């Protein structure tokens, strides 16, 4: 049996003092953590088992809200399917495109700064503004994109107004704002030791083999990072989906307003929109909204823990 050696009193005193100083610095955040994270999380879990409309006191209903969300609420599975689609297509497209643009930028010799700025700027456009801009550019009637496609004699898709094209249109918007991934990929591409490329060149490797056997292995952690954070972003995908639907359908959300969520034809529903719809749009079903919240939380935390484990840099133990 192992016996823990007693902690010398002087050390114990120092540790207590360290903790006190640390607590003083952490105090505001600890309050924030309790009030804006821990409490609402527990309350959400509690509400998910209650019938609650926000006015009358909540009553316990067991698993009824869960049953309702999974089997009755008509928009849950469309939202899950859309999210899955976005997780696969959007994340893959953005990662590949971000890597491609990052590689392009590192190879451009003339006017590099100008190119970099041009590629980066769209990422800065506020999401609402960017989405409205794309809803205009892609609007089937008078938008410039279909105008040009028409002049070229190409087919003119319905973009945000066509359920088959609404998500691809969102991907297009996501690719336009690739700046964040471009910068991250660019930085790590420049970190790849040049000797490795030279050595591969001496072994007779062509550009594709160099990419496959030098670039990719070196970039592995950053690709994992991009994919996992991409998935987390897609789980909470909200603003572009809701704004594109509203502008394309000519309606708006907000209290006292009606709009067609998921427009067109339920093709843009995402999980957070369900919470908004159940909790704030005439349904007043806070219990069922909480069920979706818990599902979203579990999914987000699952991928976050992946990030904490896979990506040692995130925790950065010095």
């Amino acid at each position, binding site marked *: 049996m192992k016996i823990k050696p007693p902690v010398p009193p002087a050390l114990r005193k120092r540790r207590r003092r360290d903790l006190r100083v640390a607590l003083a*610095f952490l105090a505001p*955040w600890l309050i924030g953590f309790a009030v804006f994270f821990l409490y609402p999380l527990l309350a959400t879990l509690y509400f998910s088992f209650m019938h609650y409309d926000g006015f009358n006191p909540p009553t316990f209903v067991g698993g009824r809200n869960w049953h309702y969300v999974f089997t009755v609420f008509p928009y849950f599975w469309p939202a899950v399917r859309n999210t899955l689609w976005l997780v696969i297509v959007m994340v893959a497209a953005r990662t590949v495109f971000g890597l491609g643009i990052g590689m392009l930028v590192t190879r451009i010799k003339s006017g590099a700064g100008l*190119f970099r700025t041009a590629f980066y700027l769209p990422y800065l456009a506020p999401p609402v503004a960017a989405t409205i801009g794309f809803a205009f550019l892609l609007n089937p009637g008078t938008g410039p994109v279909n105008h040009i496609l028409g002049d070229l004699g190409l087919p003119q898709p319905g973009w945000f107004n066509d359920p088959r094209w609404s998500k691809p249109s969102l991907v297009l918007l996501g690719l336009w704002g690739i700046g964040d991934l471009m910068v991250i990929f660019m930085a790590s591409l420049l970190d790849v030791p040049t000797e490795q490329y030279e050595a591969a060149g001496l072994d007779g490797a062509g550009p594709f083999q160099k990419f496959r056997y030098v670039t990719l292995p070196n970039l592995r952690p950053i690709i994992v990072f991009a994919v996992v954070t991409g998935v987390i972003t897609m789980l909470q995908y909200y603003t572009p989906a809701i704004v594109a639907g509203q*502008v394309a359908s000519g309606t708006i959300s907000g209290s006292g307003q009606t709009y067609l969520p998921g427009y067109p034809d339920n093709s843009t529903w995402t999980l957070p929109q369900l919470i908004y719809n159940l909790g704030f749009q005439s349904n007043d079903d806070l219990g069922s909204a909480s069920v979706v919240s818990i599902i979203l939380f579990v999914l*987000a935390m699952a991928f976050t823990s992946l990030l904490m484990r896979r990506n040692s840099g995130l925790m950065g133990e010095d």
Partner: protein
Amino acid sequence: MSQTKGSSAAAGEAARRRRLDWIAVHSVGIAAALFFVLPFVFLFLTSVMSDSQALSGGLWPNQWVWSNYVNIFHVPGFLTWWKNSLEYAVLGTVFTVLSSVPVAYALAKFRFPGRRLALMAVISMMMLPPQVVIIPMYLFWTNQLGLTGTLWPLIIPMIFGDAYSIFLLRQFLLTVPTEYLDAAKVDGCGEVRTLLKVVVPMVRPAIAAVALFQFFYCWNDFFGPQIYAASNPSSWTLSYGLQTLHSAHHTNWNLTMAATLLVMAPVIIIFFFAQRAFIEGVTLTGVKG
């Protein structure tokens, strides 16, 4: 003789390959640049079209109606949205920086039991989708404090530190050599003085990056104002109000595009002045400091 000829031919070949490579890379670069820049160009061209032309479409303005940029300010509420967006972004940024720096410092440099746990809590909070806790938070701000219809439910929490900012600052603070801190302590500085006199001046770029990110976050926030401010149009921000222009105000596309570009403008102008700090910050978010 023949040998030098051969090597000069090889050198010529290499130069030709390099030239072709240059042309290929820059052609792809220009094509990509078009994809990123053309949307801005079309938005701009539409923003200076006449009302009648904006209704019918077309790529190039028949006449350049610069007054659109004046008229958009006559749309009811547009000026109020600017005021509210600025208020939210400025207060939010100041509060966040003031409250997050000490927390990040403690997490990066103090040794205390539960340090790792505290860091994991910060990361969890950072990754929490804001919609997850919105039901209890809305009830809290509405029933307990009666602040729904204002932007305070979005600003006040920033007094208590912002997880993302804390995380980013901590990553940067890890790179500050502990010897500097020890030297300050030897000189008789307490933790507070060490932070203010030694640490803060050293991490100014990181603080600038965090301030920029937070300003942009507030400026761009759509979900928050939609939940708390939607019921009261005098609290709307630009990001919320903008999407009501075309639909609810029946504003024509030309004015809507002028407004859209105006909403993008501050962010892009700030970026040009603070490019360095910004890019540094983005790089910091991906693995390692």
